[in-house]
């Protein structure tokens, strides 16, 4: 538990992706089995202990600590798990600190009445960081900013292979992953992913550089609409059925309306959308159904989900990924005709003869939910990751507004000495109201200029945030607007970024809120 507690502690303060990967690698390489496997399971969400409620932990500490002192401390620290971890009166040598696997095993097997005594005895022997990590682990609230994908990337780097290669076998193995880790250490065979309804790494596209179009032959490409939902993979294999995000996170439990009763012996690639009467709803509707562990009947009725199918990877145990797109498309159509599952349909192919044709389609289709076009070579195999060349996404042009810089915040990691997160606003009734926040889109050189401008034009400081003179105009690009009661301005942007710094433009000429309201779907 010592090393795992230190890992969680270090991860919780590490903002950078590479920094997190380095910490994870160091842990994986220095920790024996099965501890490192259980730790991975906890980090990736494969293991979720919910044996203890925060109230139990609070009760334990109140038996040992003066009430007034606890209250003063809790008021100061503000977080219950942390207050308990820090205030617990240690009795070094009172007990032995369990290993991660011992801890998990003991907690899982302990009866309700035994658990408090076991925890107290551990807490006596632990350091504050170890108690904090233990409380996080047993209350199922790890939240330290490590995605399953990131943990897999660390494993892949440890073994010197691609993350997708880890992904491919991930769902065929179970915590504490002895066979997987043996393979990654070069000490065992590759786990066999067939028959386990495992996730297959998704094929992604590069953005299209329009200038390159003239080098491509339109006859070699197929076009489809790019839908604004989330990419998913539905896998049915040996009686198992799973729904994955494009990063391999399993989300089936939150979509029983989609997968319950579905009989499937195939691996399908598609877009998860909220649809009502065959019409795609805005992304904001889908968002209500994401990041949940379960879903209410009411939500399933008000926000019904649907999958628009793009591709078929495996059919009846036969791997189709090496076949060209055109052939897979025929397989997909045949499969769909034979099964026509209720909550699915086929993504249409957009007919075109020339690139000009397609450009017209792209600019005239204003259907809600259409983000642009996908171009796929007819002869393209289904490859993991983002290969250069076979697939392109040709998004609609972003929407642009001119906004006024209001606040700037220091970034993290490499950017911790730079003001790099910018809040901007537009005019409403003679004052500027905030409409969004962006922290990319600018070059390193522009960042230096912005940083300097912020430092020279600050009006107030609030910790890491500075308010600035409302004088600098930023051209902000974004992918659509949504209504948002949480924002003072009533609107929220998707993917806002700074596309240009308008040093030349006076703030008085920046956009007004009515312009944004007119852009709402």
């Amino acid at each position, binding site marked *: 538990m010592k090393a795992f507690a*230190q890992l969680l502690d*270090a991860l*919780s*303060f*590490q*903002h950078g992706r590479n*920094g997190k990967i*380095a*910490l994870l690698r*160091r842990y994986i390489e220095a920790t024996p089995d099965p501890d490192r496997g259980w730790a991975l399971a906890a980090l990736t969400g494969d293991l979720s202990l919910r044996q203890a409620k925060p109230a139990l932990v609070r009760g334990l500490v109140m038996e040992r*600590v*003066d009430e*007034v*002192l606890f209250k*003063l*401390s809790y008021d*100061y*620290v*503000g*977080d219950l798990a*942390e*207050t308990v971890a*820090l*205030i617990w009166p*240690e009795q070094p040598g009172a007990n032995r600190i369990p290993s991660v696997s011992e801890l998990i095993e003991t907690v899982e097997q302990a009866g309700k009445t035994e658990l408090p005594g076991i925890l107290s005895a551990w807490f006596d022997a632990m*350091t*504050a960081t170890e108690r904090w990590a233990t409380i996080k682990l047993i209350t199922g609230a790890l939240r330290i900013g490590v995605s399953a994908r990131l943990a897999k990337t660390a494993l892949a780097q440890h073994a010197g292979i691609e993350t997708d290669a880890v992904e491919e076998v991930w769902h065929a193995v179970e915590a504490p992953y002895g066979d997987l880790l043996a393979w990654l250490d070069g000490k065992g065979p590759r786990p066999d992913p067939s028959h386990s309804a495992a996730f297959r790494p998704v094929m992604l596209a590069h953005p299209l550089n329009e200038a390159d179009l003239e080098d491509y032959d339109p006859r070699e490409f197929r076009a489809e609409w790019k839908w604004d939902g989330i990419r998913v993979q539905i896998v049915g294999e040996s009686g198992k059925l799973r729904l994955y995000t494009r990063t391999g996170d399993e989300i089936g439990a939150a979509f029983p309306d989609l997968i319950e009763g579905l009989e499937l012996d195939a691996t399908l690639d598609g877009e998860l959308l909220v649809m009502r009467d065959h019409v795609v709803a805005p992304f904001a509707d889908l968002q209500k159904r994401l990041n949940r562990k379960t879903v209410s009947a009411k939500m399933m009725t008000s926000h019904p989900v649907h999958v628009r199918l793009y591709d078929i990877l495996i059919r009846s145990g036969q791997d189709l990924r090496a076949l060209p797109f055109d052939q897979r498309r025929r397989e997909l159509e045949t499969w769909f005709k034979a099964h026509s599952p209720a909550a699915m349909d086929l993504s249409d192919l957009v007919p075109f003869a020339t690139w000009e044709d397609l450009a017209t389609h792209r600019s005239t289709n204003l259907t809600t939910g259409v983000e642009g076009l996908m171009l796929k070579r007819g002869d393209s195999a289904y490859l993991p990751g983002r290969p250069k060349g076979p697939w392109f996404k040709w998004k609609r042009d972003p929407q642009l507004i001119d906004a006024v810089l209001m606040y700037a915040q*220091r970034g*993290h*990691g*490499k950017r*911790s*000495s730079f003001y790099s997160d910018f809040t901007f606003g537009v005019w409403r009734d003679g004052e500027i109201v905030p409409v969004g926040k962006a922290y990319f889109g600018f070059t390193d050189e522009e960042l230096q200029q912005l940083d300097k401008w912020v430092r020279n034009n600050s009006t107030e400081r609030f*910790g*890491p945030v500075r308010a600035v003179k409302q004088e600098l105009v930023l051209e902000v690009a974004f992918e659509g607007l949504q209504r948002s009661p949480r924002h003072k301005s009533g609107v929220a942007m998707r993917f806002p970024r700074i596309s240009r710094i308008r040093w030349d433009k006076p703030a008085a000429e920046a956009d007004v809120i009515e312009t944004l309201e007119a852009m709402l779907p």
Partner: protein
Amino acid sequence: MRDRYGERAGNVLEESRYGQPVTIGDVTVTLRPAGHVLGSAQAVLEHRGERIVVSGDYKRRRDPTCAPFEPVACDVFITEATFALPVFRHPDDAAEMQRLLSVRDTFPDRALLIGAYSLGKAQRIICLLREAGHDRPIYIHGALEAINATYRSFGVDLGELRAVMETPKAQMAGEIVVAPPSTLNDRWSRRLPDPVTCFASGWMGVRARARQRGVEVPLVISDHADWDELNRTLDEVAAPHVWVTHGAEEALIHAAKQRGFNARALSLVGYDEDAE
């Protein structure tokens, strides 16, 4: 004082040694080590057989750069209370240093930038690093030079120090840099290769405080007594009256009263009408 404060140190400075009584009016003042930083002292005031000790800032754990705190029995003990909450229990210094060295080894391409107050903390960190086996040169910010020199003149061995200003950026990858805390998120840090920011302070024991400063590695190293040290000191000096100042007075007063001390906040002494 002059090295730290320059002209602001005061017009007339009088040197005094530990344990050497000085008489001011009819009060005898004797300085005793406080263990806070080099030269830090408690003031022992004696007047007609009554003794008041003003602790000033102090700590009780071992510090290789200064003389340890000497408990002095007294009638009134005026104590600091910077970390007077039971959530402040500073961990073992050596364990913190081992954690720091493991960070150094995890990021061989990045400099490890430790923010530490220039008077006392910086020198103590350097000594603790030496004790933990870090014998490579340590790179320092120019603001530390004068006080480092003072410490050296009092026989504190800091090992090989180099100025960041005179070192090429790439050479500091995988090395340890010590600088004042204000530099952590300052433009100054850009002269270091992708620094891992560490902050050495007792406040770092609380995660929200560390996050506020945006540090990647909070180091809980403090020159102030933690909760256990404060309470142990009250027991050792065994003064019937304890006046608490500078910090979280309420919790320490509560704990002291429970053990039979007549404890109150210094700011209230003389203002409380119900007194005695």
